[in-house]
C-alpha cells in the first residue's frame, strides 16, 4: 500500500515537472497559430481557435527566414565538416604518431579549453575585419574549424584501441593514412556521431558570434535573424512565435531520434571537458 502510494507520488512529481519543462514549447507552438486578438486576451486561451499557417506566411514575408535557414544550414555543414576532419587528423596524431613534445603540447591544449570564448571574441572580431570577411558567411565558419574539445574526445577513443591492431596493419603494409580512414574512423563511429551532433547543435543555436560579425539581412543565421526580427515584429508576438517555431522544430526532431547519443556526449564531456 505504502509502496503503491510512493510510486504514485513519484509519477505525480515527474509529470508536474515535465509539464513545467515543456510549457515554454507548448506556449510557443500554440501561440504561433493564434490571431492577434487571441494572443492579447486575458485569461489566455490554451489553444488557437483554428489552425492556419497565416502567421508563418506573414513572418516569412516580413523577414527572409528561408534565407536565414539556408545560411544556418550552410554554416553548420561547413563548420561541422571541417571541424570533424581536423579533429580526426589531430586526434590520430596525438594518439598514435610520435613527435617530440607530444604529451606536453596536448596538456597545454587541454589547459586552453578553460579559456572562455568571450575572451577570444575581441581579437577574433578584429581578425575577421582585417581579413575583409566582416559580414560574410566565412566569418561564421572560419573560427570554428578546429576544436580542442572534440579532438580530446576522439583522442580518448583512439587511445582505447589496442596497439596490436595498429602494428599488424602496418606490417601488412598499410600506411598511417589508410589505417586511420579504413580501420580507426569506422571503429570510432559512435564517438564521431556524438561529436558531430554536439557540434551541429552548437552551430545551429550560435547567437553571440553572429551578433558580432553579421549585419546585413542576407547573411544572418536563424537565432540572430530571429533576434533582429523582434524589433520589427515586436508588437506581433504571434509572428515571433511562428518564427521561433521554425528555429526550434528541426532540433527537436533531431533530438527525438538521437537523444541517446546527445545525452551520452553531454554526460561524458560535461565533467571531463
Amino acid at each position, binding site marked *: 500500500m505504502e509502496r503503491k502510494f510512493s510510486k504514485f507520488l*513519484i*509519477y505525480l*512529481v*515527474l509529470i508536474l*515537472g*515535465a509539464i*513545467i*519543462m*515543456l510549457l*515554454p*514549447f507548448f*506556449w*510557443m507552438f500554440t*501561440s504561433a497559430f493564434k490571431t492577434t486578438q487571441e494572443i492579447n486576451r486575458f*485569461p*489566455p486561451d490554451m489553444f488557437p481557435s483554428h489552425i492556419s499557417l497565416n502567421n508563418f506566411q506573414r513572418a516569412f514575408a516580413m523577414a527572409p527566414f528561408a534565407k536565414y535557414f539556408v545560411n544556418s544550414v550552410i554554416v553548420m555543414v561547413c563548420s561541422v565538416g571541417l571541424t570533424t576532419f*581536423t579533429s580526426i*587528423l*589531430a586526434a590520430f*596524431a596525438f594518439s598514435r*604518431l610520435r*613527435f617530440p613534445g607530444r604529451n606536453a603540447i596536448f596538456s597545454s*591544449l587541454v589547459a*586552453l579549453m578553460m*579559456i*572562455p570564448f*568571450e*575572451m*577570444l*571574441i*575581441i*581579437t*577574433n*572580431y*578584429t*581578425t575577421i575585419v582585417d581579413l575583409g570577411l566582416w559580414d560574410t558567411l566565412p566569418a561564421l565558419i*572560419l573560427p570554428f*574549424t*578546429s576544436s580542442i574539445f572534440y579532438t580530446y574526445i576522439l583522442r580518448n577513443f583512439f587511445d582505447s584501441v589496442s596497439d596490436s591492431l595498429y602494428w599488424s596493419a602496418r606490417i601488412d603494409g598499410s600506411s598511417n593514412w589508410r589505417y586511420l580512414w579504413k580501420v580507426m574512423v569506422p571503429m570510432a563511429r559512435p564517438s564521431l556521431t556524438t561529436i558531430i551532433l554536439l557540434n551541429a547543435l552548437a552551430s*545551429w*543555436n550560435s*547567437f*553571440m558570434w553572429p551578433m558580432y560579425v553579421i549585419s546585413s539581412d542576407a547573411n544572418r543565421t536563424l*537565432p540572430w535573424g*530571429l533576434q533582429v526580427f*523582434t524589433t520589427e515584429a515586436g508588437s506581433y*508576438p504571434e509572428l515571433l*512565435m511562428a518564427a*521561433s517555431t521554425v*528555429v*526550434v522544430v528541426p*532540433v*527537436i526532431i533531431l*533530438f527525438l531520434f538521437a*537523444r541517446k547519443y*546527445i*545525452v551520452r556526449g553531454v*554526460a561524458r564531456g*560535461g*565533467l571531463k571537458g
Partner: protein
Amino acid sequence: MKKEKQSVDRELVDRSFFSRVEPYLYLLPFFLGIVVFTLYPVVNVVLMSFKEDYSYLSRSFTQWGFGNYRIVLSNRYFGQAVGNTIKYVLLVVPISTCIAVVVAYLLNQKLRFNALFQTAYFLPMVTSVTAVGLSWKLMYNQNFGIINYLLSFLGIDPVPWLVNASWSLPALVIFGIWNILPFTIILLLSGLQNIDPQYYTAARVDGSKSLRIFFRITVPLLAPTIFLVCIVNTISSFKVFSELYPLFSGKPGPFNNMYTVVYYIRKAMTDRKYAVAAAAAIILFLFIFAFTMIQTFVRKRMERRGQ
C-alpha cells in the same frame, strides 16, 4: 648489386624523413585554426588590456599600464554587472542543483515512460536560447502572460516581471534555472548510475525507508558529482548573456539595471573601447580560472580516492 643496395637505402632514408614529417601534416589543419583563432587571441587580449588609450582605427596607444583595469573597476555599470552576475550565480546554481538531484534520483528509478520523461526534461538543452527566450518573454507578459494567469489561481496579483526593475533578476533567474536544468540532471544522472547498486541492496536488507536511503546513501555518495556540477555550472553562469538578450529585447533590463559581466564586455565593444573590453574579459577569466583550479583540485583528490 651495389646499385640496388643504394636505392634500398635511399628508400629507407626517405621513409624515415616522411615519418618524421608526417605527424605535423596531420596536425597542420588543426593548428591553423587553433593558432589564429585561439592562441593568438589569448596573447593579444592580454596585451591589449594593458594598452592605455588604445585606438582601434590607428592601432595606437599612449603607454602600457593598468589604466583600462582602473576604468573597468571604477565604472558603475561594471560594479552593477559583477553584482548582478554574482547574484545570478548564487541563485541559479544551488536551486538548479537541488531540483536536479531530486529529478535525477526519480528518473533513475526503474519507471515506465522513462524515455518520455527524459525527452521532456532534456529538451531545453538542445533548443536555441533566443527562440525559447522569446517564448518566456511572452509567458512573462504582465497582462496576457500565462505565468501571471497560473499565479492568479494561487491568489497572487499580476507580477510586473519584465517591466519592473526589482523583478528583472527573478525573471532572468527562473529562465536561467529552466535552461540549465537538463545539463545538470544529465550529469547527476550519470553520477547516480556510477553508484554501486550493492549499497542500495545492503540498505534495503537493513529495512531502510526510501527517504532515509536518499539522504543517507544517495546524497553522500553523489556528493563529489554534485560538487563538480556546481563548479561547472558556476563557470557557465558567470557568462550569462544569451538569456538576457531575448527577455529584454537586447537591452540590459528595463532600466539598464541588468548588466552582466559579458553584457558589459559587449557594450564596451559596441562603444569601440576594445582595450577596456579586453580588461573586463581578463577579469572575467580570472573568476573562471579560480573556479577551474578548484575543480581540477577536487577531481585529482577524487581520482586518488578511486571514485
